[in-house]
């Protein structure tokens, strides 16, 4: 158990190092931030001075290691454009993102798990056909299209909900549904497939052969096994959402981490971009780690691996 955890932790560190190095290099390849920051009529000397003040004249590797060293202390650098610490900017946006991610995620699970089980039990019926078709459409429809359709219907036509922005619960509903629909489409299909596989498993036949009640066979013998792949997928979905639902946040003008990242790209604010990417990667790794822990609880076979 301890070895399993240590190995996962080691892997997590490696992943974060690779991601941070990647973003660092790409950030530096996309252009010179000094040209963006300095006023157009600035002299060459002034620019050089600014460059050395920001530490951008040092060798790349040195810059990288100082970035990592600072990051470990919680200092993700300073946004050139916004003149604020990157960590403050992220923390400021984090509640909005968490709120949206959590709502969308819970909504998605509430749709996907019961629906997936229901259509697996009633496979090849009208319900199965309907739900599977809708899920297929939901999975292939782009997020921005779903978001825009929801706005067109509920905000513009019916005038029930605000078009976009951040505020009370009414603002949260449409973006959360947008996120939930796409995620639920994926999870429903997986839940259905997983449940079907488990229902055909030999151990389910054994359970039936023992004369157990149908609900025992379903909830005790099938459900837990069927959840194993769903938990993995759900973990990835959640990690992705916490890292920032870029498109959804942009459509709904939701002040979350995703939009922060999009703006950072436009403004070539690469300390900020690095910070956001590193934050997203950390969230990803952390959630995966939690999923691994959850695995140990669900599936006793995992302890051995």
């Amino acid at each position: 158990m301890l070895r399993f955890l240590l190995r996962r932790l080691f892997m997590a560190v490696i992943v974060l190092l690779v991601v941070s190095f990647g973003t660092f290099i790409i950030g530096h390849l996309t252009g010179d931030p000094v040209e963006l920051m300095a006023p157009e009529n600035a002299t060459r000397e002034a620019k050089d001075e600014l460059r050395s003040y920001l530490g951008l004249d040092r060798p790349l590797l040195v810059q990288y290691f100082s970035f990592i060293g600072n990051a470990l202390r919680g200092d993700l650098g300073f946004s050139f454009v916004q003149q604020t610490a990157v960590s403050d900017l992220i923390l400021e946006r984090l509640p909005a993102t968490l709120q949206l991610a959590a709502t969308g995620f819970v909504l998605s699970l509430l749709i996907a798990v019961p629906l997936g089980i229901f259509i697996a039990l009633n496979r090849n019926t009208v319900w199965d056909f309907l739900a599977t078709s809708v899920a297929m459409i939901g999975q292939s429809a782009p997020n921005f299209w779903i978001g825009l359709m929801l706005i067109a219907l509920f905000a513009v036509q019916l005038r029930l909900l605000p078009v976009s922005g951040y505020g009370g619960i009414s603002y949260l509903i449409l973006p959360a549904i947008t996120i939930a629909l796409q995620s639920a489409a994926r999870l429903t299909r997986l839940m259905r497939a997983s449940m079907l596989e488990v229902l055909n498993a030999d151990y389910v036949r054994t359970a039936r052969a023992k004369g157990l009640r149908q609900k025992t066979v379903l909830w005790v013998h099938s459900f837990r096994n069927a959840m194993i792949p769903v938990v993995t997928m759900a973990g990835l979905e959640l990690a992705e959402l916490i890292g920032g639902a870029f498109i959804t946040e942009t459509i709904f003008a939701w002040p979350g981490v995703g939009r922060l990242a999009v703006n950072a790209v436009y403004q070539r604010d690469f300390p900020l971009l690095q910070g956001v990417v590193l934050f997203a990667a950390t969230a990803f790794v952390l959630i995966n780690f939690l999923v691994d822990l959850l695995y140990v609880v669900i599936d006793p076979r995992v302890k051995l691996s």
Partner: protein
Amino acid sequence: MSASILDIEDLHVTFRQGGRSIHAVRGVSLRLQPGEVVGVVGESGSGKSVAMMSVARLLDEKQAGIRADRLDLDGQPVLGLRKRQLEALRGPTVSYIFQDPLSSLNPVLTVGRQVTEGLRRHRGLDRAEARTVAIDLLRQVGIPSPELRVNQHPHEASGGMRQRMMIAMALALRPKLLIADEPTTALDVTVQADIIRLVQGIQREVGMAMIWVTHDLALLARVARRVVVMYGGRIVEDAPSSVLYSAPAHPYTRGLLDSTSRFDVPFRQQTPIPGTPPDPAQRIEACAFAPRCPRATDLCRSRIPPLEDRGQDRRAACFHPLTGGA
């Protein structure tokens, strides 16, 4: 005649698969007295497992259509029972041991729980009682340190140990009929004999009726008084093992016996049956074995031979049997 524990008459099982029909069982009749031990033998695809699964209606009935003139288990018409009544039969009346103990045990539940689930369901034992019984059962099937094993999961045990757990589970309720579907096929040769002896011993002690389903005639010679040979979804021969092994009536039984590995005959002289088993997707209005049979005539190719008495307590479905008249 005493009441049969199992009475099957003209059982048919058909699977519907994407518009195609698979005729797995095409008219099987079989009767078992309480305490009787019967072996059912046949190649894979002969319908032996499917026929036995139908006894407790374990097949997925969204895909499998079961019909029979009679399918009585301990006097109860299985096909007419409602879900609850059926559940009450599974376990106390009929129990199963399946082929692959690893896939047949639930990976996420403890051994103790799986072994005693039936007891808790049918006898209403509480958790503590169940644990004591589980340890007892595991000890009976020869599992060392059962008090540790009850809390473990199936993957922590070896193949032989897992099959012992399956046996403990199947026997927990002392069923009137035990159906063992290829119980040793997935096991190492070295533990097969142990498992067979174990099941045999418990069967004698409890006095339950038992069906061994296998493709291994040599195994049946040791465990079954009576052997039923299946081919193409039908019974082709049903005879006491002493009669069947010394003088088979059906050419297919002969072929099976001849293709069984023997140490006293050089490998080259052993004769496999030529050809392949019939396609279960096809309707057959003839003897299913005719295309592979050296004795086949036009009669065999135009009509289904009925399963008829051939004396010596034997039934065979053949127009030109090797022994027993005609």
